């Protein structure tokens, strides 16, 4: 848990540029924020290794703190523990769904290599039907997969579980 409520509130104003309904705290990208001898240090962790949104989020974190009077800010990258969608709260998942992205499911223990994809009947975020199919495990961003709803004939994104 991050103790400094004021700093945390400032960071909550920074949204994921690719999923603007989630802020960087609820996304789990911000791991810690603290004051170290007059300087504000923010620990961030990447979602996917190559996620190009992280650089934008880092810049916006610095900007948000500066515009609230914290001139000396350092963003540090941390890698452990590795980011997981299991950190996402029920509230954040509801926001994703309302935005048109099927939220991630909680991961279960499974073997290292699973060659056949689990067929999960994801609920379509538009019409609620479970008559949907996953078209590809890779989508418009590193964190999303492509699905299609056979009921309302609408393609939709889902947040991958990782």
């Amino acid at each position, binding site marked *: 848990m991050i103790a400094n409520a004021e700093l945390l509130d400032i960071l909550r104003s920074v949204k994921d540029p690719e999923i603007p309904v989630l802020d960087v705290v609820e996304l789990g990208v911000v791991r810690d924020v603290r004051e170290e001898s007059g300087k504000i240090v923010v620990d961030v962790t*990447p979602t*996917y*290794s*190559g*996620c*190009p949104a992280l650089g934008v989020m880092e810049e916006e974190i610095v900007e948000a703190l500066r515009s609230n009077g914290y001139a000396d800010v350092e963003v540090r990258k941390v*890698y*452990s*523990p*590795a*980011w*997981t969608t299991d950190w996402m709260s029920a509230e954040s998942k509801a926001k994703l769904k309302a935005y048109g992205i099927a939220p991630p499911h909680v991961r279960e223990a499974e073997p*290292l*290599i*699973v*060659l*056949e*994809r689990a067929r999960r009947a994801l609920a379509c975020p538009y019409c609620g039907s479970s008559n949907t199919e996953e*078209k*590809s*495990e*890779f*989508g*418009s961003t*590193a964190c999303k997969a*492509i699905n299609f709803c056979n009921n309302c004939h609408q393609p939709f994104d889902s947040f*991958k579980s*990782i």
Partner: protein
Amino acid sequence: MAEQQASPENVLFEYALRLGDDRLILGHRLSEWCGHGPILEEDIALANIALDLLGGATHALEVAAAAEGAGRSADDLAYFRETVEFRNLLLVELPRGDFAYTIARQFFFDAYSVHLMDALSKSKEPQLAELAAKAVKEDRYHVRHSAEWMVKLGDGTDESHARLQNAVNDLWRYTGEMFLSDPTDEAAASAGIAPAAPALKEKWNAVVDDVLARATISRPANEVFMRGGRAGRHTEHLGHLLAEMQIVARSHPGAEW
């Protein structure tokens, strides 16, 4: 060029360089498909996998740069080294070929990488352990993707089957290098910072045999393998790739946008 001797001081540098270079070069090869994929979903998938590999490369080269302690950054390592200084497998530098060739190469690498990263996540070196713990999650998606295509192409039409079998036959001689031991690998293994390369072969064989069988593709019998990439002896193809990848950084050193 003589084989590089790995001392304990530079074993982390050398090992991280291998991880970074494999992912940097393969990521670049995959990115060549961007805008040229056979179908839209696949174009997107290959670009996403390229991005994951590039992210892993950046992380590994940051570890290498810090271990070297010579003031070079990850970008310096990526853009300002010569062909003979790259430590990637020959497998990953080969031209992308047709789609079957790209998929076969990717599958051979993914099946190796997922096991390597799984083992490496238990490394005594925290920087490698955390890098691997992250990469293995992405690799699990990658190997499922390439294995699905292996089966689709191999067990598909006569044309797709023939193309995939040709690709597997051509690439096979480059797969052995993943499991060859050398002084850097031995030093890393004896220090407990990485699994010994030969130890991964059995697990790789199991998944490769399973997928080749499902894909109705014959496993080549040839067990004579090309090597040299880990020691900086590359095919003619790497220089051409680097020329394209490095030209902007070298033409405008230090440029920002």
